[in-house]
């Protein structure tokens, strides 16, 4: 099976009292192994729900979800999920946080520390091992979360608007570093964002979702070499194309 993620007419609805809310409807797309795919869509369109379904945190109401050929299950497969909100354990140090996933995956203690330190170095946080989360900046917290996700050697990296809360400069720095890490580690990334420029900067393919209930509006290959210049004409033309599709959806809200 060479598809990392396969979604086939996936629908998700929640029961709200007697009525039901359709969040995702008949959503179909796939992600190849080692591919970097961004999903963009208007807020409230079910992007986070989509990520939760791919991560195996909740089942779809109907349709088929396969991650490396099987229904996703974090107890069997390894997912590196990075959340928008702060997801560090405040009572653990930076090192302890990176070790968390390794602990759950039953790594030996010595091995845990060695691996955690390697990945802290990868995200540029050597020397901060013994800091507590409240002592470091928002960008550094994101780096810790990324190190924690990568440390377990995930089959799939799922990112839910991870940089949305950062300031513009930190965000663009984190984007560049993420690309560096991605090219070094050869991982499949599904990255969710509502920021079109971010999607064009990062992704090989951008999936544009419609407003709720979400389906695929358009899939656009970004045929630009890395690193990408945000002010280059082809970059801007990709951005405009996606923004146009995006705005058609926004108007309906």
């Amino acid at each position, binding site marked *: 099976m060479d598809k990392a993620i396969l979604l086939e007419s996936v629908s998700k609805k929640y029961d709200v009292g007697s009525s039901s809310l359709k969040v995702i409807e008949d959503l179909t797309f796939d992600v190849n192994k080692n591919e970097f795919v961004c999903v963009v869509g208007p807020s409230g369109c079910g992007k986070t729900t989509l990520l939760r379904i791919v991560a195996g945190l909740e089942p779809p109401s109907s349709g088929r979800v396969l991650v490396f050929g099987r229904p996703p299950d974090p107890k069997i497969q390894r*997912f590196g999920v990075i*959340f928008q909100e702060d*997801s560090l354990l405040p009572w653990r140090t930076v090192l302890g946080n990176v070790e968390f996933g390794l602990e759950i995956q039953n790594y030996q203690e010595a091995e845990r520390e060695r691996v955690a330190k390697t990945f802290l170095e990868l995200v540029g946080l050597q020397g901060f091992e013994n800091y507590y989360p*409240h002592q470091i900046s928002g960008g550094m917290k994101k780096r810790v979360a990324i190190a924690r996700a990568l440390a377990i050697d995930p089959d799939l990296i799922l990112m839910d608007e991870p940089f949305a809360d950062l300031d513009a400069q930190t965000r663009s720095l984190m984007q560049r570093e993420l690309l560096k890490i991605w090219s070094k580690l050869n991982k499949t990334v599904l990255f969710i964002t509502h920021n079109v420029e971010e999607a064009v900067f990062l992704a090989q393919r951008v999936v544009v979702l419609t407003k709720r209930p979400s389906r695929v509006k358009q899939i656009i290959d970004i045929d630009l070499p890395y690193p990408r210049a945000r002010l280059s004409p082809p970059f801007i033309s990709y951005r405009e194309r996606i923004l146009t599709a995006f705005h058609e959806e926004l108007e309906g809200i």
Partner: protein
Amino acid sequence: MNVVSMRKLYSRLQSLLFASASVIVFFILWELAASYLQSPYFPDPYSVLKAFITIITVGDIDGYTLAWHTLMSLERVLLGFAVGSATGVPIGLLLGIKPTLKNAVTPIIEPIRFIPPIAWIPLSIVLLIGMYRYVFLIWVGVFFPVLLDTIAGVKRTSITLIQMARTFGADNKNIITKIIFPSSLPEIMNGLRVGLGVGWMCIVAAEMIGGEPVGLGRLILKYANLLQIDTVIVGMITIGLVGLAMNYFILFLEKRMFRWRVEIRA
């Protein structure tokens, strides 16, 4: 020494000054009241001090010294506290994690919570003997604050952290031991501190009955029967001071344990 630490020192000295001033004022008022009332049942500070020294050095009418009374009471309260925490924390975790179970037992727990330990005395006399009775009556005081704070701590646990753990493949045991428990620990410690305080305040009720002539509650009741109020006040003050010391001890532990949290407040 820089300006900031000078200011800190100054404000510390100031609060120390105010604290000692209010203690002095308190003793003056006590002295004035005693000399105004001239009652054998309202001793002045000096006779309480004398009684203090007698109880510490010589002992009471049965020969037990104040240290012995205090130790015996501490043993009973700490045992009750141990049983109270060993039941309150796990049951609190369970009820916090299972809201349906909590809703089911709330109608039982809530009214029982408001029954004071004194009201349990007759029943405990009939049903329990010796240490069991002490432990039970202290437990009544300890259990509920520990239980309620533990439940509150579990509820405060961030859902994002639980989901994060799930994405790493954590099972329920992992989520309880590695997320919910450490996240609730500040509230649990707070419940333990309050529970220990309440348990300690139950000591008089717990020692109200029973054959053994030792314990701070016993001491108070013994001398109340003799109408020697100065020694009664000695017992009261000792209970107050020991309670205060225990509270500060746990506060000190909390500060050391929750460095990750205390500094957020600062």
